[in-house]
């Protein structure tokens, strides 16, 4: 039973990270119907930015928790700037081009950024400091759920709750939903759609950066390639839940996290990806729009 709980909690942690990154995919898709394949690289950039910031701050003798907060903050700002710029350079000029063009541009951006990180940093794995302090009250449960995992789960929960509130109740959130549902009409009521697209990229990138920092301090090492793997997994989560749907991305993230965790625990870690992608195939066969996705129907 304890083993089951351990796997369940492990899946929860993993799933919340997938969910966080999947939100970026799904939000961008909701607004401009583009799979932003460079999204995973934003996560890598977030992790590297945090590593550099953390190293510098450690030299200056900051304590653990302030390093965690400051490094995350810098990573979020830096990654958001990247997300904003990527959209302006690689997608905005192609807004009216056939749908394949921005997709190819996205893949190109992904490859470019991967190699940019590779050249600017190194191809080796770099150790990433465990930024989350060991909580005293977690000592008893350390063998099944670590402080870092608790922190990951809490942070992602808080972030997702804030995001939900923003989308549901603020003016900008309403404009995002309106733009996703009917872009032309959003323009006709006075929404500056370019601004909404930029904001969406900024929010998605910020979420990816938070995910990058959290998972890097959990696993303890990073390289230029982490974003690619995490990106593919999060994309799977987004499709699983129904791309374009925000609750779907969260649900898809958790389901994928649990699938991987249980597959690793009860079968073998070699089969982790097999189960994850087999699940995707099954969903695509039996529910092509995803679990919470709606196939589009319009009333005339």
């Amino acid at each position, binding site marked *: 039973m304890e083993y089951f709980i351990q796997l369940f909690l492990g899946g929860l942690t993993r799933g919340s990270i997938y969910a966080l990154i999947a939100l970026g995919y799904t939000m961008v898709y909701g607004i401009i119907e583009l799979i932003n394949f460079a999204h995973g690289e934003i996560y890598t950039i977030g992790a590297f930015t945090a590593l550099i910031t953390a190293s510098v701050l450690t030299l200056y003798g900051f304590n653990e928790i302030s390093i965690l907060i400051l490094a995350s903050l810098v990573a979020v700002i830096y990654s958001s700037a990247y997300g904003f710029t990527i959209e302006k350079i690689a997608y905005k000029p192609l807004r009216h081009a056939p749908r394949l063009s921005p997709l190819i541009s996205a893949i190109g951006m992904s490859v470019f950024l991967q190699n940019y990180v590779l050249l600017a940093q190194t191809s080796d794995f770099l150790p990433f400091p465990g930024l989350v302090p060991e909580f005293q009250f977690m000592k008893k449960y350390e063998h099944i759920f670590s402080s870092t995992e608790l922190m990951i789960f809490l942070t992602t929960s808080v972030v997702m709750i804030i995001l939900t509130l923003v989308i549901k109740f603020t*003016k900008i959130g*309403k*404009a995002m*939903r*309106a733009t996703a*549902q*009917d872009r*032309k*009409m*959003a*323009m*006709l*009521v*006075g*929404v*500056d759609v370019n601004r909404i697209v930029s904001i969406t990229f900024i929010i998605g990138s910020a979420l990816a950066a938070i995910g990058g920092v959290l998972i890097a301090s959990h696993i303890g090492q990073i390289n230029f390639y982490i974003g690619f793997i995490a990106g593919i997994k999060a994309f799977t989560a987004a499709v699983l839940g129904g791309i374009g749907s925000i609750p779907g991305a969260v649900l898809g993230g958790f389901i994928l996290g649990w699938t991987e965790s249980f597959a690793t625990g009860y079968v073998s870690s070699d089969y982790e990806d097999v189960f994850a992608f087999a699940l995707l195939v099954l969903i695509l066969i039996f529910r092509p729009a995803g679990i919470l996705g709606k196939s589009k129907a*319009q*009333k*005339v």
Partner: protein
Amino acid sequence: MLKLVNVKTFYGNIQALKGVNIEVREGEIITLIGSNGAGKTTTLMSISGITPPGSGEILFMDQPIHNVSPDKIVSLGISQVPEGRHIFPQLTVMENLHMGAFLRTDKDGIADDIEYVFGLFPILTERRNQAGGTLSGGEQQMLAISRALMARPRLLLLDEPSLGLAPKIVRQIFDIIRKINSEQKTTIFLVEQNANLALQVANRGYVMENGRIVLEDYADRLLSNEAVKKAYLGL
């Protein structure tokens, strides 16, 4: 108030408007009639800045707006009820109305205007927390007009408000259009296929064929014009 001077609009290589000249004066209801594909919707979309003209001028209150972005055009006072209504399907009726007031910041004024449109269309009050996509066609048309009014436009562009609606609902909607014009002093630019109905409420009318204005006159004179009768009134 609004002036289109030799407006030419293109979709890729296809020229939809081939030099359109239209003038709308403050306070009047004008209508643009014509058959399918004549360029009526394109004319409205050019005015709203969604498909900006390739050449020619559009002046609103003597200011050129043909190179202005759609959101700026709304803020200048031009709102559109597009063909097919385009309600935000997953937003509630209230949220749809608030989207109509997107560029406004006067909370009290917005609340007053919501009361005003609920007065025009009482059925919307009952539906206020329902998703827009669940409304009937007539209710959606009412919501679309209400949403456009929420921006407090000086000029209201209406594209085929009668499309697909029962005759009774159409009459109700046209009464409201007249009321908006007389009570709110909102200038109205009405695009319609139902020429008979449109010419009855309008002061003046334009007839469009193949991207050109072929006839313009007072509405009552167009109603008795032999060519119009034959082509558009089915008489």
